[in-house]
């Protein structure tokens, strides 16, 4: 359990912000009561372990607002340097965006347009492949309140919400007493499909511990059973590590459910098969609608990655990996996505907002990023901010700044900040860069 920071001895008045929103993960819980004492968050009622660290970890700090080549500088100097880097580049990228407000995201895409660059978000290394699967076969889904009110068979596939979305069970998928599931957990069957017996798996009624990298074969077995296609039991056991009889039992339960739900994670998108793993799962959910109502939902990771999808889509027409070198948007995952433009050595400058590619990207991509000038906006010091040409320390969205975020089910939620911050907001820094870029490009 993360421990709250020690409060000052003299009792100064504490203020409480009710129904504040935590933006650490895609649950975007908006029922957090925050206690603030002399500009410190001292309590975050109902926040999970990740939420508490999020609120306590973003206390005020005295780091400089802006560093150029690691040396303190004014924000104005930083903006000037950033604008020059971006306007001189021939293949600049704007990347990240999943942990800032939609208002700031809209300016970041405007910058990408003005510098004829490529705009991409952390979606491309998260549920981007599920977005590509959606573009192939479509998707049957719903908002989380529908799951809470109707879901009676809940399947968690290739994900570990107990550790990545700790309140998902209690707030949305397993525990809530709903209109058509009045007894809550007792009215539901919980099923886990994963390669590890995680904390999530232990909370399930049924657990399918499949062979590593066999998600596609498991989904294909279920798709075959849904269409009553005869399959060879030995091959099913060989391919998935699970007997055909158990898959048949699961399919019978799926057909008998009133409202089936599949919530799936990185196990599908980051493993061999990637977008075609997701496509198999989306197709299964669609097929099931011939028998009963069935929905599916990718468990989005960051607080506003869904907002990034929405903003980039309504402004350019495409969800991520959007190249604007030609003066109009072009889309092609695997070509304009950041893992590729960096690993292939194509990008020659970058604007990185609220993300940490120097920690999470492939080795060739990190080596390229290290070798090109880039600007980083982040409330915290990270490996990315450390080797940035220009690093801005910005206020934290949801803790210091208001704005709009989109939960994993596209529901927009407004942020009510708890603390002021000495640092500029992402929106302010990006707007200044955008103004200067537009002038330089005239």
């Amino acid at each position, binding site marked *: 359990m993360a421990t709250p920071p020690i409060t000052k001895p003299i009792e100064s008045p504490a203020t409480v912000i*009710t*129904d504040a929103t935590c933006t650490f993960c895609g649950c975007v819980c*908006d*029922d957090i009561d925050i206690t603030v004492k002399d500009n410190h968050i001292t309590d975050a009622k109902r926040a999970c372990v990740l939420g508490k660290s999020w609120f306590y970890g973003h206390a005020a700090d005295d780091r400089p607002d802006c560093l150029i080549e690691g040396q303190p500088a004014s924000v104005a100097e930083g903006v000037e340097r950033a604008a020059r880097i971006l306007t001189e580049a021939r293949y600049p990228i704007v990347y990240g965006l999943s942990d800032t407000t939609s*208002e700031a995201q*809209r300016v970041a895409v*405007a910058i990408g*347009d003005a510098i*004829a660059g490529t705009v991409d978000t952390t979606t491309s290394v998260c549920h981007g492949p599920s977005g590509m699967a*959606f*573009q*192939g*076969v*479509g*998707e*049957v*889904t*719903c*908002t*989380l*309140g*529908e799951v*809470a*009110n*109707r879901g009676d068979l809940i399947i968690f596939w290739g994900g570990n919400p107990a550790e990545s979305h700790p309140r998902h069970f209690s*707030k949305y998928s397993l525990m809530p007493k*709903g*209109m*058509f599931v009045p007894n809550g957990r007792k009215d539901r069957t919980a099923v886990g499909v994963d390669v590890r017996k995680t904390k999530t798996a232990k909370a399930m009624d049924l657990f399918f511990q499949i062979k590593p990298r066999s998600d596609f074969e498991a989904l294909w077995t279920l798709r075959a059973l849904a269409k009553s296609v005869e399959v060879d039991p030995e091959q099913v056991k060989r391919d998935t590590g699970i007997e055909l009889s158990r898959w048949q039992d699961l399919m019978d339960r799926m057909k008998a459910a*009133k409202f089936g739900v599949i919530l799936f994670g990185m196990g599908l998108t980051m493993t061999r098969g990637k977008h075609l793993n997701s496509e198999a799962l989306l197709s299964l959910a*669609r097929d099931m*609608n*011939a*028998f*009963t*109502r069935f*929905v599916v939902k990718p468990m989005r990771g960051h607080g506003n990655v869904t907002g990034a*999808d*929405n*903003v980039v*889509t*309504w*402004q*350019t*027409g*495409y969800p991520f990996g959007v190249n*604007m070198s*030609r*003066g*109009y*948007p*072009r*889309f092609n995952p695997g070509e304009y996505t950041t893992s590729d433009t960096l690993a292939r050595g194509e990008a020659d400058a970058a604007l990185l907002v609220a993300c940490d590619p120097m920690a999470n990207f492939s080795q060739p991509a990190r080596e390229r990023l290290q070798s090109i000038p880039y600007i980083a906006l982040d409330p915290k010091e990270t490996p990315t901010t450390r080797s940035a040409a220009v690093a801005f320390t910005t206020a934290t969205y949801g803790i210091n700044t208001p704005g*709009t975020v*989109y*939960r994993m089910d*596209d*529901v*927009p939620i*407004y942020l009510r900040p708890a603390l002021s911050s000495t640092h500029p907001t992402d929106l302010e820094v990006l707007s200044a860069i955008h103004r200067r870029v537009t002038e330089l490009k005239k």
Partner: protein
Amino acid sequence: MSSGYFKIAGGTVYDPIHGVDGDVRDIWIRDGQIVETPSDFDIRPDKTLDASGLVVMPGGVDMHCHIAGPKVNAARKMRPEQKRKAEKVVRTSNTRSGTMGSVPSTFATGYKYAGLGYTTAFDAAIPPLAARHVHEEFEDTPCLDKGFFVLMGNNHFVMESIHRKEPEKLRSFIAWLLGAAKGFTPKVVNPGGVEIWKQLPSGNVHGLDENVAHFDVTPRQIIEQIARAVDALKLPHSVHLHANNLGMPGNWITTLETMKTFGDSRGHLAHIQFHSYGGGEGDENTFNSKVVELVEYVNAHHNLTVDVGQVLFGETTTMTADGPLGYYLSNAFKSKWFSSDTEMESGCGIAPIEYRNTSLVHSLQWAIGLEWYLLAKDPWRVVMSTDHPNGGSFLAYPQIIQLLMDRTYRQDMLKQVHPAVLERSTLADLTREYSLNEICIITRSGPAKILGLTRKGHLGPGADADITIYTPNDDKTKMFELPRAVIKSGVVIVEHGEVREPLTGKLLYVAPEYDTSIESDIAEWFEKYYSIRFRNYPVPLDYLHDREEVACAGL
């Protein structure tokens, strides 16, 4: 010293609300509004636009389109293959880049509507839970004043208060919900049917008097009670209805019954073309037009208005809050399918489709739409729309205008469609040709009046200075495709198709009074079933930028 005046001189003006049918006159503008001609003769306008020989009309008003919000954005995301091949919207010094296809990106939507001379548009179907999403998209949709209709026909609180026969509570809830979302009027889509879809596979209602399980109400009651509540609240625009059984052969019976359900309450029936079909259950070769029977009822009942929802041949993307319809269409066209149910409020379905002039059904849908325009007696109560993009894109309005104004063009097109159209609809015998005055009514003055917007759709003093100037041309498609100039709030925003000034435009919303004691009731229900907190649901005024509250004086 600038006089602040802007004069449009010597244009051939059409202003049907003031009975001006092609008179040559000047129009004076100041501070974004149309003003009386100044009595002091030596006042010089700062700027004059010579409109001699040109047609001058109010800015276009699209009262039913799908241009913003969760399902529109999902449809954008879902069609990269169409956007890759469609026209490119290239960035300029003062405009943003964008993409087209059946669902353009937001900036492109604003520029293209303005390029046709449209200055006001209403999105037809928004779940209130997603209102903020629409407000954010509207801010990135330039050149248009905008608003949206709030989905209520399958709202649980609405259905429960109708079941418990509490019309006052229903009225207060509707007023509260419109204020919370900053919307314009209630939108009822396949009432009851979407809720059954949420409960059962391929679930739907098939008639007005079918019971909606768990809520024990009927579609007829939902329509009747909401229509009455809207009239009692004196909202500027009536309830906006997408009737049950859209697209089903033989659905004209439901449509006629639905019209009667309104009694003498005001009612607007959206994309009426999709609801005017004769024929047996799913039996294609009996599919035929029932416009003659339905238009007779509408001609005789002045409380009812319709927009047509014209079908154009070619590829498009259907998107509807009618969840079960989306599933039906995607299976019929074997296409990819998106469906998303919003808790307590509505559903939605998206499916790419193609209308082909070789198909009997599609050709009849096309003909049925034109029949509605040509058989409706009162142009003030039949409105131009393609239910963009369900029947086709708003970019097709100029082509529809030519079909209505030019009989020979219409006859030529008739030769290219499925021959069954000749005996199964009356289109071949209709010789009516619309006048410019009537076109002005169905594309701006009529919808502005139906929406209750007193400062739109006309050129009298006090009107917003939204004006479009066309170069006369026998080829009506060309004439209406490329206006000479488009003026929004007194500023020339488009000339010869080039966007000069991409203004943002303002949000039009209503804030009807209501008995605030209902809020504790709503909060209790809300906290029990919704997945967000009640406090975080309403959109406060300061969330909006440019906005204008449209008063609820009603009629």
